[in-house]
């Protein structure tokens, strides 16, 4: 890692928040009227209002998942959540127009200045809506559309209408229903045919209001033969009351297109992070999920790919870090729905201080999908006796031509590794920091450098004051 990157991160703090500056804030709790009000306030077309209402009704009827950490799930008090919050009345385009206290937040996240050099474009979600949005001119010239989701709906209603909810219908699960009913913000990204976006396209999200639910909605469409790398980062300040975060991310990779979606999320240990992420990959398309989860009270997230077209490829690389009082229930799902489709899943988890990480995976090969290949590797590192790791792999293999590999390992830090590193001058904490960073390295090296540095730093902080 370069020294520059170290400087960019500076004295990054993980638990601060700005005074709430929201101008419009709904009362807590959810009803059909709240859903209608959100839609009206945003001046949405009737069809979107209808979708929201339908989703709301489904949400009310839909039971909680009966798997995963049910006792934690059932503790969610939906009445104690604010479903809409607007911090700034218009969507900004220029950095100069962004309110100062919001800039201040980004400053402390280590974002500005440096971003100019390399960002493809930025939408930053502050509270519920994007307040800053810029696209580099060459992206615009290439015909790339990169907007916050609300603006996307306003400016390109026909595209949104065509694809919204096609990958993840509102009825997929209780939380996708909730998101569809109350969504706000998120990104809308369209890459035209044959366009390759060289720089990663970035968005930053954070929770900053007490009990604030975040229900962003992201839709990415990569048209035939195009490619894009979308990056999203997230750091939550620590608050004492529970927060609910429930995003929906839909990706569509047309024939020969490639989408990589990278996320690092670091939630404080009061946050429920219940996210539905799914992609469709058409003929010869590639979808890559690079997904890092740190913190939260409970994360349930299983990025999935529907390999619909022949020759499509899925790659899911994920890490999860579960500390004290945290449960990471994460994994990957790949559905081989067409012949000669391939997938790679690499999942790594660390549990410490009584934390729990679970790998939950699904690999499906339909009877007609011949010649498929898949490799699944799950590695868990457990740092102490109190912590826990479990694996729940499911395989539904419909034909015998599939070439499948599955490896799983659970390991501990060995005394010999610690002794070796300490004999080179590292304290026990520093040695642990090196070992855990090394363990996550196959993931970290896939990230843009800023994120890699940030993640390494976070993990080192996690190892501090914890040994003895």
């Amino acid at each position, binding site marked *: *890692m370069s*020294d520059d990157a170290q400087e960019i991160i500076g004295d990054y703090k993980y638990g601060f928040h700005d005074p709430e500056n929201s101008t419009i804030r709904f009362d807590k709790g959810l009803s059909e009227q709240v859903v209608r009000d959100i839609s009206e306030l945003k001046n949405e077309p009737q069809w979107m209002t209808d979708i929201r209402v339908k989703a709301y009704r489904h949400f009310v009827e839909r039971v909680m998942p009966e798997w995963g950490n049910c006792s934690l799930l059932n503790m969610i008090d939906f009445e104690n959540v604010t479903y809409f919050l607007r911090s700034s009345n218009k969507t900004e385009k220029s950095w100069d127009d962004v309110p100062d206290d919001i800039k201040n937040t980004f400053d402390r996240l280590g974002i500005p200045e440096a971003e100019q050099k390399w960002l493809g474009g930025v939408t930053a979600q502050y509270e519920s809506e994007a307040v800053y949005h810029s696209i580099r001119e060459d992206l615009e010239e290439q015909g790339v559309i990169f907007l916050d989701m609300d603006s996307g709906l306003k400016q390109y209603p026909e595209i949104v209408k065509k694809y919204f909810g096609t990958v993840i219908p509102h009825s997929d699960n209780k939380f996708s229903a909730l998101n569809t009913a109350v969504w706000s913000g998120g990104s809308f990204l369209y890459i035209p045919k044959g366009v390759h976006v060289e720089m990663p396209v970035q968005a930053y999200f954070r929770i900053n209001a007490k009990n604030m639910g975040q229900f962003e909605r992201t839709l990415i469409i990569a048209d035939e033969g195009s490619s894009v790398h979308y990056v999203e980062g997230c750091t939550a300040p620590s608050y004492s009351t529970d927060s609910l975060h429930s995003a929906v991310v839909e990706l569509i990779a047309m024939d020969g297109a490639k989408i990589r979606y990278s996320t690092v999320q670091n939630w404080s240990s009061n946050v429920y992070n219940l996210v539905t992420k799914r992609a469709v990959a058409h003929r010869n398309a590639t979808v890559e999920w690079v997904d890092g989860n740190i913190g939260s009270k409970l994360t349930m997230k299983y990025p999935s790919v529907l390999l619909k077209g022949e020759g499509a490829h899925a790659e899911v690389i994920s890490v999860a870090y579960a500390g004290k009082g945290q449960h990471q229930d994460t994994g990957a799902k790949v559905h081989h729905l067409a012949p000669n489709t391939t997938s790679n899943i690499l999942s790594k988890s660390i549990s410490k201080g009584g934390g729990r990480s679970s790998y939950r995976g699904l690999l499906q090969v339909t009877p007609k999908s011949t010649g498929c290949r898949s490799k699944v590797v799950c590695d868990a590192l457990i740092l102490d006796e109190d912590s826990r790791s479990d694996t729940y792999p499911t395989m539904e293999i419909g034909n015998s031509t599939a070439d499948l590999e599955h490896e799983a390992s659970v390991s501990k830090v*060995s*005394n*010999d*590794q610690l*002794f*070796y*590193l*300490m*004999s*080179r*001058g*590292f*304290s*026990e904490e*520093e*040695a642990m920091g*090196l*070992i855990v*960073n*090394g*363990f*996550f*390295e*196959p993931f970290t090296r896939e990230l843009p450098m800023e994120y890699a540095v940030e993640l390494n730093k976070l993990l080192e902080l996690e190892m501090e004051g914890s040994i003895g």
Partner: protein
Amino acid sequence: MLSDEILRVENLYVSVEGTPILKGLSLTIHRGEIHAIMGRNGAGKSTLANVVMGHPAYEITSGNIFYKGEPLEDLEVFQRARAGMFLSFQYPAVIPGVQVGTFLKKSVASVRDDPPKGRAFRKELTAAMEKLSMDKSFLSRYVNDGFSGGEKKRLEILQMLLLQPHLALLDETDSGLDIDALRIVAQGINEVAADSACLIITHYQRLLDLVKPHYVHAMMDGAIVRTGGPELALELEDRGYDWLEVTA
């Protein structure tokens, strides 16, 4: 001469999981001295090196170890390293995912009093690697991960050159090296040994042809049973250890 005393081991008894391994071992090394220890497998040579460095699995049941005249017992392993002690491992640990370059930079930063930074560090690193005929590509590999035996030993010596220890414990650093690598590694040892105290654990004379020891110790069953000059190493290689058992 007391000020030049680096390591003093006094009548040391050490157990592992309740089994006594070292049984009354004594040894003193001064700055500028090279000592060699030879002995059969299982004699306790690695145990001595590990216990001096502070491995937690080894329990000192009686006796003392002094470093520069101060008792070592209260120093943690990393503090010993920062105080100038270095162990070249017989079996270096693999640290997956940690790049050699990052590891070396951080290690030097934590051990050296006035560590070279930025360009100065890179310059020193490049020079040391050239001495050991190590390719730059080493730096982006993971520490000892997939390394051959010889590569591991070279990385140990590279670390020794960069950390500039006052006491170097070299545990079978010559094992698994071909003759060219042995020569290169020996050069590295000689460079450091000139100004430090050096303890070389080996089975073979061939390293001692290249790194001239001032003293050679024969170790059996957890204790030093005979001490001599370089000629003792030749004799041990020639006659084995049985004759010592008879005379001991």
